[in-house]
């Protein structure tokens, strides 16, 4: 990106990109940045801020700053994996529904409607208590639930493209369904899908954090922002701001992604102001 492009980018988007970059780098290089290990008990419980422990320690005597840094890796990494999974499934099924139409479309769409009709947090809690709370299970369940929205978006935008003459031209040529979907339809719906990816990531991230906060998400001793809020929650009654730190991280990242997505959508829409 040249200087001119940076100048014409709104400050909110620049801020958002900076935060995302920072979180990504922190997550990638967590072991090198963090002063202590993720699960390492380094001192007494509830040590104050400053000194050896930048943000103090939690109830078990683990360094909160280090756990926040590792949290960037775990919370964001798991949410990212979940979003990718949700997108792969949602886009594939959505394209298929739009491309085939007819009964396939009806059956898929109604099944997805059924899934959407159940409040997703309640449903996730239910499934997690049935299948247990391992990380793969968490990823799978949240991915399936979030996939429904991706499916709907993909199906809707792909249907708009599927009626274009160039799609008909490809079908008349005798091209297979897979080729038509991949080469003629998919390239024309990437813009909304990319934007949706950012937003969906926020929702996934919030959903996993909420589940962790409720105790059914990422489990101890893995450092995760959602469960850190829960672990330190009682401190708020003593006037401590510690639980607000992981909560703040969650909020900051979510808002930042929204800034960037807003900007991208705006650019794609071609509006001037």
């Amino acid at each position, binding site marked *: 990106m040249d200087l001119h492009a940076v100048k014409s980018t709104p400050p909110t988007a620049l801020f958002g990109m900076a935060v995302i970059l920072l979180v990504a780098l922190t997550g990638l290089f967590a072991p090198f940045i963090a002063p202590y290990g993720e699960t390492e008990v380094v001192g007494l419980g509830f040590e104050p801020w400053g000194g050896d422990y930048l943000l103090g320690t939690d109830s078990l005597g683990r360094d909160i700053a280090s756990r926040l840094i590792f949290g960037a890796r775990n919370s964001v990494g798991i949410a990212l994996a979940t979003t990718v999974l949700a997108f792969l499934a949602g886009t594939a099924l959505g394209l298929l529904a739009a491309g085939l139409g007819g009964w396939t479309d009806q059956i898929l769409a109604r099944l997805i409607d059924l899934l959407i009709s159940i409040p997703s947090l309640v449903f996730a809690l239910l499934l997690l208590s049935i299948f247990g709370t391992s990380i793969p299970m968490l990823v799978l369940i949240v991915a399936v639930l979030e996939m429904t929205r991706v499916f709907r978006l993909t199906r809707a935008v792909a249907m708009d493209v599927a009626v274009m003459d160039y799609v008909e*031209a490809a079908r008349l*040529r*005798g091209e297979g369904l897979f080729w038509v979907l991949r*080469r003629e339809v998919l390239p*024309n719906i990437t813009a909304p899908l990319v934007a949706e990816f950012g937003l969906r990531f926020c929702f996934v991230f919030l959903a996993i954090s909420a589940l962790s906060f409720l105790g059914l998400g990422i489990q101890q001793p893995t450092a995760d922002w959602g469960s850190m809020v829960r672990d330190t929650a009682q401190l708020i009654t003593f006037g401590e701001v510690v639980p607000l730190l992981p909560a703040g991280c969650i909020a900051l990242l979510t808002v930042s992604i929204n800034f960037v997505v807003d900007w991208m959508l705006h650019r794609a829409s071609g509006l001037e102001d």
Partner: protein
Amino acid sequence: MTDPLLSIRDLWIEGRQGRDWQPIVKGIDLDLHRGEVLGLIGESGAGKSTLGLAAMGYTRDGTRIAGGDIRFDGQDLLGLSARRRRALRGKRIAYVAQSAAANFNPAHRLIDQYAEAPVAIHHLMKRPEALREAQALYETLRLPNPQEIGFRYPHEVSGGQLQRAMTAMAMACKPDLIIFDEPTTALDVTTQIEVLSAIKGAVREVGTAAIYITHDLAVVAQMADRIKILLRGEEVEEQETSAMLSAPQEDYSRSLWAVRSHAAPARPAPPAEAVPVLRVRDVGAEYTRGTPVLQEVGFDIHAGRTLAVVGESGSGKSTLARVITGLLPPSDGAIELDGAPLPPQLAGRSKDQLRQVQMIYQSADTALNPKQTIREIIGRPIRFYRGLRGAALEDRIRELLTAIELDPDTFIDRRPGALSGGQKQRIGIARALAAEPRVILCDEVTSALDQIVAEGILTLLRRLQEEHDLAYIFITHDLATVRAIADDVVVMQEGRVVEQAPRDAMFAPPHHPYTEQLLGSVPEMDPDWLDRTVAQRAKA
């Protein structure tokens, strides 16, 4: 002479292209007096619509007024605040757009949308009064059932009626100036004549001034007192209508006139024993069981010849194309290719059968994938049908680009977005040609193009036909196109073939009554044609 109602001096309008601003309108002067109708003619991209909108002090997104002066009734339009300008729009200057269907809100009844401007926005009258006036205007515009039609929703009336309802809407506040932006371009000829005469009558009755934008000369000849011709944002010439028609001064104006009278020489009829390359035998088709869209449609088409299928929208022309291509299996009858039956379903046809019947679409914008380069668009059918790769593929793509008169080096890596309408349509032709077909279905391929560009496309198609012995099925509602390219004509109405004959026989009497009506509705360059034709029909 009084001061003009609208006076534009040295107007420059620029449009954004990436980071640069390119001029679209280059120093145009324009004067319009009360009660006068000015026709604006030019190809698309000539700046007609931009100029028309500027007369309201409005510019589209991505365009800006770079210089000049627009005065409306003594006020400097560009100097007014946005609020004052908005107060003029709809009330003193109104706009009628090309596609009424796209400009009506489908969720509100016609009369409610009519009442919006005079009642809710400009507070000129109370609703009951507005409704009464609407009904009176609907009557002036000769809408059927004027008392009742306003209470329908946009989808409940026909395209021609909707266009007239939109004209009524523009007249609601009794504006001094109405801008008509191609109001009849999207309509069939037989509908167009009704709308034209209704608009003409209403404009005459109310005495409003109008700017009439179109690319159809014969239409503007009926409507305008004066005609101004634009080319690439510059004025070519401006004259009184009769003077412009009888003695255009500039070469460009004369070339516009010449295009209309173009006709291809007749070819000899094919020998009686020749097997037609495509035979449509008693085809019937339906989308829902029991309501046939096509009935007993049958014709032959021989190699190297062009068959025009003519009819209004709703006559079944496009359905016929879907049946021939296999998208819609016929409910009755059969299609034969070289004397052998063609499987009714697309999925049942072999790759070679698919290859032999290709299609060119009406709207080049939706016919080319905007994300693919020209190389991919033309290359794919070559690779798909002939399996060419690498250098051989590249050579063939270049050969095809040369055949459609586009420079390979310039165009091969472009995407459709960087092409003009005519260039896109040429790429559509190259894609069809790449399959090396025997039959090409051309679905209204020139109707979205300007006359001169369309002329170029038709000439190209004729040349390719001779070089490759192609058979064309030309689906069109434009009889000028038929005259220019067809060898044989099939006239369709309500899913049936009503007349079928060689072209010259078709254009010579006696005609089937429906053909007669179609032919009689094509506007002629004579300014009195509209009034005369309408009067004749009223008598009959």
